[in-house]
């Protein structure tokens, strides 16, 4: 176990980033033109970073698996994006945003990174507005805001229930602008399979052209992964079905440490699973909890229609348990509280695994029109999926896998443990600790992409001016491509009887049951065994058809599922190692009398970063101690 150097700059918290920026080395415009950067992923972080780097004068090559960068899953973020603008004059500040995130993350995030995220948040809103993002406005024409969970100010900017779509399209438009100027080259329909490391530095990637099936090699002076999270290890989640952590995992196998893999956010309000065929779960934005009240019937097995249950027979359990924050508790707390009620037999719906989110009072107080303008698109989405009208009866919701706080370990410069390899957005681990607060993923992705990576990457590239990018004929590229082809051939030649989709569903069940909202030692050990068994079966019984030299979607899925097995094991192992509860990581052995997460700060106030040691070897744990110099570490309370 070695200690990791996070390279956090010296000085007072609010001066760190300012001073650090001044100390970062620059690359001259003439030299930028000679330098290539590979960007994998085109969500909010990737598109923003690619556009910024292109504008600065670098040659940027951008890759995504979809047919257009606009389809990245940032598009599905609903509720909003935070900034400490203090537009409502409710005494908001960078420090308060920082503090809310540190507390919300249950004191497992890195102070300096979080403060910086808060610091750049205001610029993001200015940037997006200038790009023509149609944020919601007040009648006076200024930008509107709303509240989100775990927060007592109104700092969340939004565009109806489609903020992610609009923020992504903003960065997409900036990307398109750079493509039209020729600074960025776009490569769509590519699946990254290997990271190429040469002389200890990240120097390129190998990817599969999803149309022709051909292997392609690309070299550069630096590689950035903006490839999102790995929440699809649960199979059913709010993620896009093709999202996976496979690209980050490929980097892990080449030496990038993987941090806090057990920190996965379960979002409290999703449309419950309706049937066994379901291929994904749909989020109902946390913003709904601004006006919606969560409840279950006070008596078990109450089969009356929700509208027939009188007020005094309803248990508004969040308001009861957390009077200070009420329905706006952080996500991990809201999710566990719903599970607690359902496990105790008070759940509603056909399966008994759902709770109500009711807008009756809000509609009465504010009128249907106001509620429509705030949440219209979400109400429509709910109605399309369930056939029920939330204007007339409460929504039914239940928690589902949503966001991975864990990801590739990065230092303050967002560089992984492989020199020249960076990770931004959800793909890294640094800003959300053990639980992410709502509306902070668009904020972190945008901040990393527009204002942080473009500065920090120059510091590294300034040392690479004399090193030309390697030829793609170099032996490291040759070997990486060979590895990728061997992996594909291995899968194609199994000729078994079970499809990749089936395996993925089975994996998801194991992970949800043993590595989901609640974990314990026995379950985690059992989960590890079961995942290993299932993986063995996968390599004996996978069935694929078609060929490798054309579009083959089941093969694409099989490659992702293969990585998901390994990420799942890493996740369970991390959860087993972290013998405490914190944020979204809830070990039933460690809880307070009221059932809240009980941390063990003496032993686990650290980031766990795992190093790959070979396919059949246990990964090695490294730790980064966390220090809190600017906040008082305490038991989180939202009461």
């Amino acid at each position, binding site marked *: 176990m070695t200690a990791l150097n996070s390279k956090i700059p010296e000085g007072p918290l609010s001066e760190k980033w300012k001073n650090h920026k001044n100390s970062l080395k620059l690359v001259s415009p003439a030299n930028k033109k000679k330098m290539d950067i590979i960007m994998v992923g085109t969500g909010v972080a990737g598109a923003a970073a690619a*556009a910024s780097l292109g*504008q600065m004068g670098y040659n940027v090559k951008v890759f995504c698996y*979809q*047919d257009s960068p*606009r*389809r990245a*899953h940032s598009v*599905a973020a609903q509720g909003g994006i935070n900034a400490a603008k203090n537009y409502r004059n409710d005494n908001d500040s960078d420090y308060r945003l920082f503090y809310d995130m540190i507390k919300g993350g249950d004191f497992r995030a890195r102070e300096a990174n979080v403060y910086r995220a808060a610091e750049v948040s205001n610029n993001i809103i200015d940037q*997006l*507005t*200038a790009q*023509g993002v*149609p*944020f*919601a*406005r*007040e*009648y*006076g*024409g*200024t*930008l509107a805001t709303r509240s989100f969970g775990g927060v007592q100010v109104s700092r969340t900017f939004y*565009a*109806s229930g*489609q903020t*992610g*779509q*609009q923020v992504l*399209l903003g960065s997409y*438009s*900036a990307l*398109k*602008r750079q*493509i*039209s100027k020729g600074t960025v080259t776009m490569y769509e329909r590519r699946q990254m399979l290997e990271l190429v490391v040469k002389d200890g530095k990240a120097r390129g990637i190998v990817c599969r052209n999803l*149309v022709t099936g051909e292997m392609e090699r690309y070299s550069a002076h630096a590689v950035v992964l903006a490839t999102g999270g790995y929440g699809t290890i649960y199979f059913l989640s709010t993620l*896009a*079905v*093709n*999202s996976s952590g496979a690209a980050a995992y490929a980097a892990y196998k080449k030496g990038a440490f993987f941090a806090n893999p057990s920190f996965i956010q379960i979002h409290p309000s999703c449309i419950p699973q*309706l049937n066994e*065929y*379901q*291929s994904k779960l*749909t989020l109902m934005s946390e913003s709904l909890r601004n006006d919606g009240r969560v409840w279950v019937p006070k008596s078990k097995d109450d089969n009356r229609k929700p509208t027939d249950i009188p007020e005094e027979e309803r248990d508004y359990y969040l308001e009861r348990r957390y009077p200070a924050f009420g329905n706006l508790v952080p996500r991990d707390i809201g999710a566990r509280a719903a599970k607690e009620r359902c496990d105790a037999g008070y759940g509603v719906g056909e399966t008994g695994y759902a709770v109500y989110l009711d807008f009756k009072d809000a509609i009465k107080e504010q009128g249907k029109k106001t509620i429509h*303008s705030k949440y219209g*698109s979400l109400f429509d*989405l709910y109605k*399309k*999926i369930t*056939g029920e009208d939330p204007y007339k009866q409460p929504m039914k919701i239940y928690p589902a896998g949503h966001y991975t706080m864990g990801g590739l370990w990065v230092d303050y410069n967002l560089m992984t443990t492989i020199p020249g390899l960076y990770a931004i957005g959800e793909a890294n681990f640094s800003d959300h600790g053990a639980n992410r607060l709502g509306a902070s993923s668009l904020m972190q992705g945008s901040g990393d992409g527009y204002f942080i990576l*473009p500065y920090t990457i120059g510091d590294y590239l300034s040392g690479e001016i004399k090193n030309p990018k390697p030829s793609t004929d170099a032996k490291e590229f040759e070997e990486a491509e060979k590895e990728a082809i061997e992996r594909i051939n291995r899968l194609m030649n199994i000729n078994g009887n079970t*499809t990749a*989709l089936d395996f993925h569903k089975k994996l998801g069940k194991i992970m949800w049951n043993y590595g989901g909202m609640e974990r314990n030692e026995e379950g985690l050990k059992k989960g590890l065994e079961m995942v290993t068994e299932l993986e063995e079966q996968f390599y004996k019984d996978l069935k*694929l*058809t*078609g060929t490798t030299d*054309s*579009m083959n979607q*089941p093969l694409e899925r099989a490659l992702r599922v293969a990585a998901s097995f390994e990420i799942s094991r890493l996740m369970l192992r991390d959860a087993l190692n972290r013998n405490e509860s914190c944020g979204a990581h809830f070990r039933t052995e460690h809880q307070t009398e009221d059932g809240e997460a009980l941390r063990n700060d003496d032993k686990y106030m650290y980031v766990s970063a795992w190093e790959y040691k070979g396919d059949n070897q246990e990964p090695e744990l490294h730790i980064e101690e966390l220090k809190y110099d600017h906040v008082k570490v305490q038991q989180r309370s939202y009461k």
Partner: protein
Amino acid sequence: MDLTIKVWRQNNPHDQGRFETYQLSAASQDMTFLEMLDALNEQLIHEDKDPIAFEHDCREGICGSCAMMINGRPHGPEQEVTSCQLNMKAFKENDVIVVEPWRAQSFPVIKDLVVDRSAFEKIMEAGGFVDVDVSAVPDANTYPVGKDIAEESFDAAECIGCGACVAACKNSSAMLFVAAKVSQYALLPQGKKEGLTRAWNMVSKMDELGFGSCTNTGSCEAECPKGISLAHIARLNREFLKAGFHNLAAEKR
């Protein structure tokens, strides 16, 4: 439920393509349309056949990946849904369902139901952005935008770029797609400064890429999964005319 699915199968852009007919009994009214296709694909894989290629990702109607003609209509018979949101409750026992890729010259078929929509990307590159650098911007509240104007701009910005408007149009015109972008920006002070070039450049690119002209039949609006209004085409026409007069005047000078 038992279904007969007739699907367009085409191995690659050069293949002539053909309809294949499949019987599916593993379907249920609880499925979405794409889950039904998943089930059909599982069946095909077990029969050692190549599964049907189709695009999909978010499966909640926002990424714009899924794109198919279902019984002759883009995204199927329901109003304002994408294929991934289409519920199998829209169909009955023993129905015959015909599934085809988008039919438009500018969207060549790659495989089965997957078409190449990169023409949309080229149109966006011709002007689908506000010409502003990262960082060189004023405070977001510098230019007030009326609530109703912001909402109208948002309504246009809701476009998911799926291509249903092109597939629905008898002229394979991309006018609604272009109009949504032009209108979003034309309504906002931030986007006004390119008012004289954006519409002109995007429409010219659309013409160059082989999309047809608009004859105001309104089928795009009727089939748009996001309900984007034809009124935005009217605004595009105004913007285009303005740019036209401006260009004419510039030529005369």
